[in-house]
């Protein structure tokens, strides 16, 4: 296996060579010590493509539910994996459309909410109930993002954000007519304590406080489409392709870079000036203040300071780059690789990572927890976890 080396790191990590080999990495030099990283790294990939039962090449989204079942949204329907394997759920089962765009779990009921190219679906007790723009208050059938906050299901659609109160059945629609929203095309939505963040295509990020009925817009201060003229001054771009929030930190994907907002200050990254492998970021999952970013050039992980990027070489082998602050980059090849470098969705906890790619689903085994040596970030005060990014075991007793 081909490796590359960086001599500056040699002496420091010789002692960790055995551990690194055990993790499945074949280092160019013994400098790659994942245990000194502030977050876990993926030590091995296990891939599921069409040969392994995936119904399509493209896997759009993935979610591991609190009951341990894995939900996989694909180009050709929904899959659920239990102890007996993968089971398809298709339009024949009542799914409103085969193309799955987003997944979220209601942490209380365990119901899975599924955004598709034509409608929203609730999977409950093995049955599917569809909500369409024609038979319900759903703003639009193209449902990109979905999240569950308390009794409310929030959806980001091609014609505004929808809020379904599951107890009353009442829908609210927020768009350019009644909210601070540059346009109604919403790509992503995420509950964040008492507020909801809406990723608006071309409109940056909208922060909505449902209890107060207020809206606050975060826009790119540069107002420049292609360049982040002044770094860290706000969202890197107004084209919000995805966002997430966890533990007080908001992360924004755009097609022109990546951003983080910790409640006080913004950080922005573009590929020409940072380890971000590509400006084309289209999905982000956050866990313990670490962002797992899906790009067109692989998977990127960062706490804002250290970066670990996973990609696939032309020969199909795995590549891992470790970028530490003020340190030379460490490059490694790995025995196993992502199913594909075009990453569309991610789900991660302390033990494992699931990655939806353009050609299959990848299961990533994580290295041992690194002792939580995380970069310190200021957090928003008193913002409890309420959404699906919360740890799945945080379910109250029935």
């Amino acid at each position, binding site marked *: 296996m081909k490796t590359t080396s960086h001599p500056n790191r040699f002496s420091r990590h010789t002692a960790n060579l055995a551990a690194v080999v055990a993790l499945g990495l074949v280092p160019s030099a013994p400098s790659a010590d994942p245990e000194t990283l502030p977050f876990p790294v993926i030590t091995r990939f296990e891939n599921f493509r069409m040969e392994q039962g995936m119904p399509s090449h493209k896997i759009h989204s993935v979610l591991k539910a609190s*009951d341990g079942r894995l939900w996989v949204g694909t180009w050709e329907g929904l899959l659920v994996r239990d102890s007996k394997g993968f089971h398809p759920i298709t339009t024949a089962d009542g799914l409103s459309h085969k193309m799955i765009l987003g997944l979220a779990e209601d942490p*209380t*009921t*365990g*119901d899975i909410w599924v955004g598709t190219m034509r409608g929203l679906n*609730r999977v*409950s*007790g*093995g*049955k599917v*109930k569809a909500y369409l*723009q*024609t*038979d*319900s*208050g759903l*703003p*639009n059938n193209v449902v990109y993002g979905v999240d569950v906050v308390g*009794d409310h299901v929030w959806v980001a659609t091609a*014609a*505004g954000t929808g809020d379904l109160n*599951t*107890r*009353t*059945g*009442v*829908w*609210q*629609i927020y*768009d350019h*007519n*009644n909210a601070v929203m540059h346009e109604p095309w919403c790509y992503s939505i995420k509950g964040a304590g008492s507020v909801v963040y809406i990723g608006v295509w071309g409109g940056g990020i909208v922060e909505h406080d449902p209890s107060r009925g207020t809206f606050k817009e975060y826009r790119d201060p540069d107002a420049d489409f292609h360049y982040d003229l002044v770094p860290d001054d706000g969202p890197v771009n107004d084209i919000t392709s995805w966002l997430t929030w966890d533990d007080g930190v908001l992360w924004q994907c755009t097609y022109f870079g990546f951003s983080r907002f910790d409640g006080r200050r913004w950080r922005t990254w573009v590929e020409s000036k940072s380890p971000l492998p590509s400006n084309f970021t289209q999905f982000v999952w956050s866990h313990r203040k670490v962002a797992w970013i899906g790009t067109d050039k692989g998977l990127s992980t960062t706490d804002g300071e250290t970066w670990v990027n996973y990609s696939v070489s032309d020969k199909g082998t795995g590549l891992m780059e470790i970028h530490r602050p003020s340190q030379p980059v460490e490059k490694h090849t790995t025995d196993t690789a992502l199913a594909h470098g075009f990453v569309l969705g991610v789900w991660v906890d302390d033990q494992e990572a699931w990655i939806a790619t353009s050609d299959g689903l990848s299961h990533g085994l994580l290295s041992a927890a690194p002792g939580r040596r995380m970069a310190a970030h200021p957090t928003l005060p008193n913002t409890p976890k309420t959404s699906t990014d919360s740890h799945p075991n945080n379910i*109250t*007793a*029935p």
Partner: protein
Amino acid sequence: MKRRLIIALATAAILVAGLGIAWSRADKTIRQNARIRVLDVVHGAGLRLPERDREHMQDRSGLEDISNVSCRDCHGATTNSLPWAQPRPRHASPSGLAVSARGDRLFAAAPDTDEVIEVETSTLKVLRRAALPGRPTSVVLHEPSGSLLVVCRDQDRVARLDLGTLTEKESVFVGLGPVGLAIASQGAIETTRVVVANTLSDDISLLALQPLREVRRLPAGREPYGVATSADGTAAYVANRLAVMPGIDRAPASELTAIDLVTGRISARHRLDSAHLSEAVATLPTRGWILTPMVRVRNLVPITQVARGWVMSAGLALVTPDHSSVIQVPTDEANRYFADPSDLVIDPVRERAYLVSGGGDAVSVIDLQRLHLWLQSASESTLRTAIHQLEVSGDYVLARIPTGRNPRRATLSPDGTRLFVSEYLDNAILAIDTTTLKPQGRIVLGAAGLDDPIRRGERMFTWAGKTFQGQFSCRSCHPDGHVDGLNYDFDGDGVGDNLLDNRSLQGVASTWPFKWNGKNPSLEIQCGPRFAKVLMRTDPFEGQALKDLTVYIQSLPPARTRHAQERALSPAQERGRALFYATETPSRIPIPTERRCTTCHRPPLFTNRAKTAVGTRGLNDTTDHFDTPHLLGIAASAPYLHDGRAKSLEELWTLYQTNDLHGVSSYMSKQQLNDLVEFLKTL
């Protein structure tokens, strides 16, 4: 001569006086006739009215063009004066029952009189009556905590009563219209769960007992009704009364919802094909069975098949121990039906089931061992079609025990020797010796109320004895006087044509004419000869019985919905209200009178009592014109349109609106449509 003159003058005077009286009487008659004519003004006639009446109608209707305005829209049609808004007699009718662990006490909920009643079972005497507002409907005992839990259906709550004093100690709000109630204990009080089926909000509440609080709300099927829990307290099962809307030409299916009480989540939704009206559920732990009574409905088969028993029949749906399939078996006989199964009680020791027939006034005793043997001997194909083979019920039905009128719920003494059945419309509880299968006695809670025409009418409404072989009652299609959510192929206008959506009878008073074609001018005609010809296949309701039946129907208030009970309109509802009453679009374009919502759906009943063509004629329909339905309680009566093609209010305009004929709505944004729907749900 003089005398003749006097006689002539007197005669003339008499004649003049007579003429005057005659003229006066004639004038009065003319004026009365004119008044009647005015009151009878319907479409178009208003144009020929005197100027004063025209101005009056224009002023009151707010419409320049009064060609569609009827005097009846206002006169005699305020909701406050309608029969369902009037006070009515109350009766001590027992509903849910519970027996103490020692078997010495029986508790009954009496929803009509807002009471909980305690009975001594040894003497069959009433010991205590406790007032409990909110229409107490179901009861369950939790003796370790000294509690009697009671569902108060009209106040959407569960109350905990102290068993010693029968006084209310605490209460918790649940979903809308709770009915079914069961308790599941896994040992510790902390893990004990109370399971509540909320019929009107289509969900299930899980309650903790100490303190009484809701810990979870789970989505159910449609109209969850009956609840049972497993013996080990780890699972609950909920029977759903209505089928999930299948679509206009598809067979319906309802759901038996299974809940894992350890995780508090739905574990399965068992599908009951072509079945609905499951109002109870019970388990047989020894065989791992879950059983629910059901009605096998064949609504897409023309009603001409009533005489062949092909419209509806009762049975049991059995979820197999591995939960992989549901088997339906009949409980009726080939020429004798026991309609409207309302409760199911299982004696696990004797392996018997007691199935209550609310429309057949009987309890069927089913030998579950025999049923097991029959199931074992049956082939797969036999099992698939068993529900249609009514003669097989003789293999496992042991007896039919007659009861009083409209038995609803039942409970078994802990030792299984006595069955108590609430005879709802007799205001009594029947005690049955399960060894002899004979009645032991009756606990009379109050006079039967036969001097009350509403009560007499309800007895007609719920009685299947008037239909051919007792196949069904009015209630079979109109549970609680409401809808069953299905569409039917009536043969009066041709077999296979004109599938018709079942319309609610709630809030129907003064909304004549009836039927979707508007041909029945009164409930007397609708429920009398019309009902007999199309459905009963026997002699019609007549005379006093027919009068009582219509009085009862008119006493039914509109469906209670979540939206309607909220007093103030939300901002969205206010916006929707403005759209409903709009005479012009937001762009100031006038909306033609005949295409305004209020022209046809005019308050206070939200109907103009006329047939209207709104572009909804289907491929198999023979007319464009359909009766304008009232909108009171419309949120609860899906599906919509004459053939039930619209499964939600939104679909009226998103899928089935043609050229703005059903109200001008093409200018509306999705937000505005949502607002309009939210307002409609408040009616």
